[in-house]
């Protein structure tokens, strides 16, 4: 019964998305306040029904109703309750329903927090969001219905993929989706501005918090995925340049460019059409990512099912969204000319470089990710692009970007002189070089020039990020949230670079064979395998070894890596034993039994690896602080309100 109710609610949600789109767009076009009000109601209704549908799916999972095909495929009576809820988005159909719920929630958010915006703008934005919702609801109903019944019912389910039975991975998809889907809001704003033919600083001020929130969630989602891959896949790597990771990283890079470009549009009324283009691109890349992951053109743990019908639908949807938006752009972009100028050295040019380099990095990744697919599609060679390409090429735009960041933060709008900050920036650069040499040569030993360059960049950015808040605080000037947010986010980037540079330069990894009672030395630590025993989990059996780690005779840690076999899917899973410390991880993963009690073990020493995720978290925190800025909460200005009222009267 619950499944049918859920299915029915989903159809109703689709039916409400259509009037939301129609009355939202046409109500604004013909200036009919009643239609606009109707679109607002449709948003609320759509959200309620989508939430109900989602709750129904959660309920059938909770009930272990194996007469529902999707539940039978992705759950099991032995699955712990927590993971039964996580299993709702553990595969394709349910994760799309989650997508739709997130989409509806964003629309509800826009409707709720639009008090400072003219009604017509809000209405157009909601209309565009309604179109996107309708597309996704149709996609679910036509190709990926999670409520289909299985007859006769399965006696038990096939279980959730053991890789996904993990707390970090349970919240990774929602985070990522909130980010992906969040970029539909700037997209909708861009389309609305183009329809309206008007784009000013106020528009940029409305869009900025939405873009920043989407970016924040995407940052957290990507970081969680990276963290999960690190401890769950058993390889100890934190980024693999896997097509699926790239698919989430490209919208992030463009989203980063977008929030910087929006700053210029808000403050100076420049880069207008560029900002529009970035808004369109960020959401297009989110859709492209979905297409890559869902269509089965690439294979990975994420590619739940390869169904050409689904791929075709998303590709058509992508074509309609992007094609429509770009056509509108080609038609309307000439309206958004700005005539303000800026000097070659100014905040504007630094942000221009930031944008160019971020887009450059995106192109590098896009090329490496899609080239093998094109080759395959045209029946040419089967190729893949190795991580060394990405590792080398990603640095080409990113290194100059990071070095431009330190002065860029202190450049004035219009024309920057650096008279007052020259001294402090130079001093900080000197300190950064000394620190980088001290860390790389002094603490860890010489590795390469790139290590020193990377650390110098990180320390310089970290120092430069603090200059402005500290000097404002000491001089008793006001310290708006947007400045604190910017400084915190840039400081987070510096932490990330410290982590990434150090771990990639000084990690020590080895595979070896060890028997209980044997000791081996690795990276200055002694690893002793004391015992190997069998343990039982709720839905798996495991072989667990105990490894005692000592340094100079003193015990540092005891870790318990496991090799699990889940009872239903019979897949072996590695559960790494990790001793985490602020400045290093010791990572022990079990391989396989080698005979005569011996096991293959993977031992890793990962200096500063925690800074990678800490840095990402601090970046997201910076975003959170920035959106708390007071000016985003200001009501609409007098003439804006008057104009909107006049518009309503003529209707």
């Amino acid at each position, binding site marked *: 019964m619950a499944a049918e109710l859920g299915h029915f609610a989903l159809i109703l949600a689709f039916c409400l998305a259509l009037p939301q789109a129609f009355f939202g767009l046409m109500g604004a076009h013909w200036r009919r306040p009643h239609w606009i009000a109707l679109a607002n109601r449709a948003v609320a209704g759509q959200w309620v029904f989508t939430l109900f549908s989602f709750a129904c799916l959660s309920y059938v999972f909770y009930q272990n109703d194996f007469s529902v*095909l999707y539940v*039978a*495929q992705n759950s099991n009576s032995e699955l712990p309750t927590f993971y039964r809820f996580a299993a709702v988005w553990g595969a*394709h*159909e349910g994760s799309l329903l989650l997508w739709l719920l997130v989409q509806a929630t964003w629309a509800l958010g826009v409707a709720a927090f639009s008090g400072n915006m003219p009604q017509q703008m809000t209405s157009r934005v909601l209309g565009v969001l309604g179109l996107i919702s309708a597309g996704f609801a149709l996609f679910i109903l036509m190709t*990926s219905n999670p409520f289909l019944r*299985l007859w006769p019912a*399965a006696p038990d389910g*096939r279980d959730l*993929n053991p890789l996904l039975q993990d707390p970090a991975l349970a919240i990774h998809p929602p985070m990522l989706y909130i980010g992906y889907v969040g970029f539909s809001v700037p997209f909708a704003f861009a389309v609305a501005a183009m329809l309206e033919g008007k784009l000013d600083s106020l528009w940029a001020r409305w869009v900025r918090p939405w873009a920043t929130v989407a970016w924040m969630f995407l940052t957290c989602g990507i970081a969680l995925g990276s963290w999960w891959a690190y401890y769950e896949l*058993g390889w100890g790597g934190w980024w693999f340049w896997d097509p699926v990771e790239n698919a989430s990283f490209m919208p992030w890079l463009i989203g980063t460019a977008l929030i910087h470009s929006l700053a210029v549009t808000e403050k100076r009324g420049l880069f207008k059409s560029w900002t529009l283009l970035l808004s369109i691109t960020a959401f297009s890349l989110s859709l492209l990512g979905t297409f890559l992951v869902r269509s089965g053109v690439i*294979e*990975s*743990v994420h590619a739940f*099912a390869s*169904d050409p019908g689904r791929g075709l639908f998303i590709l058509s949807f992508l074509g309609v969204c992007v094609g429509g938006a770009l056509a509108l752009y080609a038609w309307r972009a000439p309206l958004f000319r700005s005539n303000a100028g800026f000097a*070659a050295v100014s905040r504007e040019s630094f942000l221009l470089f930031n944008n160019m380099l971020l887009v*450059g990095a995106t192109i*590098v990744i896009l*090329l*490496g990710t899609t*080239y093998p697919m094109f080759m395959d599609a045209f029946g040419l*060679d*089967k*190729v*893949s*692009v*190795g991580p*060394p*390409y990405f590792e*080398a*090429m990603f640095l*080409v*735009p990113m290194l100059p970007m990071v070095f431009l960041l330190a002065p860029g933060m202190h450049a004035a709008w219009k024309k920057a002189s650096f008279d007052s900050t020259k001294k402090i920036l130079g001093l900080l650069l000197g300190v950064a070089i000394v620190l980088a040499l001290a860390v790389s040569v002094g603490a860890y030993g010489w590795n390469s020039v790139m290590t020193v360059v990377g650390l110098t960049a990180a320390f310089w950015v970290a120092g430069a990020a603090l200059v402005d808040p500290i000097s404002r605080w000491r001089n008793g000037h006001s310290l708006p949230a947007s400045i604190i947010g910017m400084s915190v986010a840039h400081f987070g980037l510096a932490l990330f670079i410290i982590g990434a540079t150090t771990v990639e330069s000084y990690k020590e990894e080895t*595979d*070896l*064979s060890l*028997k209980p009672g044997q000791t081996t030395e690795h990276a200055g630590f002694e690893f002793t395998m004391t015992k190997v025993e069998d343990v039982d989990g709720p839905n798996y059996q495991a072989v667990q070894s105990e490894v005692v780690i000592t340094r100079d005779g003193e015990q540092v840690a005891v870790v318990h890596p496991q090799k699990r076999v889940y009872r239903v*899917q*019979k*897949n*072996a*899973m*590695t559960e790494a034993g990790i001793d985490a410390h602020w400045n290093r991880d010791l990572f022990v*993963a079990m*391989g*396989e039994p*080698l*005979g*005569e009690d*011996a096991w*293959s*073990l*993977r031992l890793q020493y990962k200096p500063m690896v925690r800074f990678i995720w800490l840095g990402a978290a601090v970046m997201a925190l910076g975003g959170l602080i920035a959106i708390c800025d007071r000016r985003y909460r200001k009501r609409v200005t007098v003439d804006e309100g008057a104009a909107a009222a006049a518009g309503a009267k003529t209707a």
Partner: protein
Amino acid sequence: MTPRRRRMTLVALIVLGVGAATAFALTAFQDNLLYFYSPSDVSAGKAPADRVFRVGGMVPEGSFTREPGSLEAHFVLTDYAHNVKVSYTGVLPDLFREGQGVIARGRMGADGVFVAEEVLAKHDENYMPPEVADSLKKQHQKPPADGPLPTT
């Protein structure tokens, strides 16, 4: 320098930078392209002798051997027409097992044994790397049937 001249210098510098970056990108791209070959291709001598490439196929039952206590493993990859012997030292992926499709990345040794640097097998029992499925199809062998429930 006049402003016009300064602007031209800036443009020239940017063009130069973008050009250099593109050249670097294309070289890095060429160097890191990994080609995929089936065991039949390898037997026919199509695979390069001096470059890293990927070879994929099924691991037949009973072909996996390892010295007790040693990390060095030997197995065979087949497309049911030709075989390639593979050696690999290190921890094998969780999903590696006989009777399943895997992909190995490495180079051809002088003795005709493929020395793998990495072995990929990240699929469940119903699934096969698409490259492997394709090359099996070419050899007129059907991939194994699906599990008890239909996959969507």
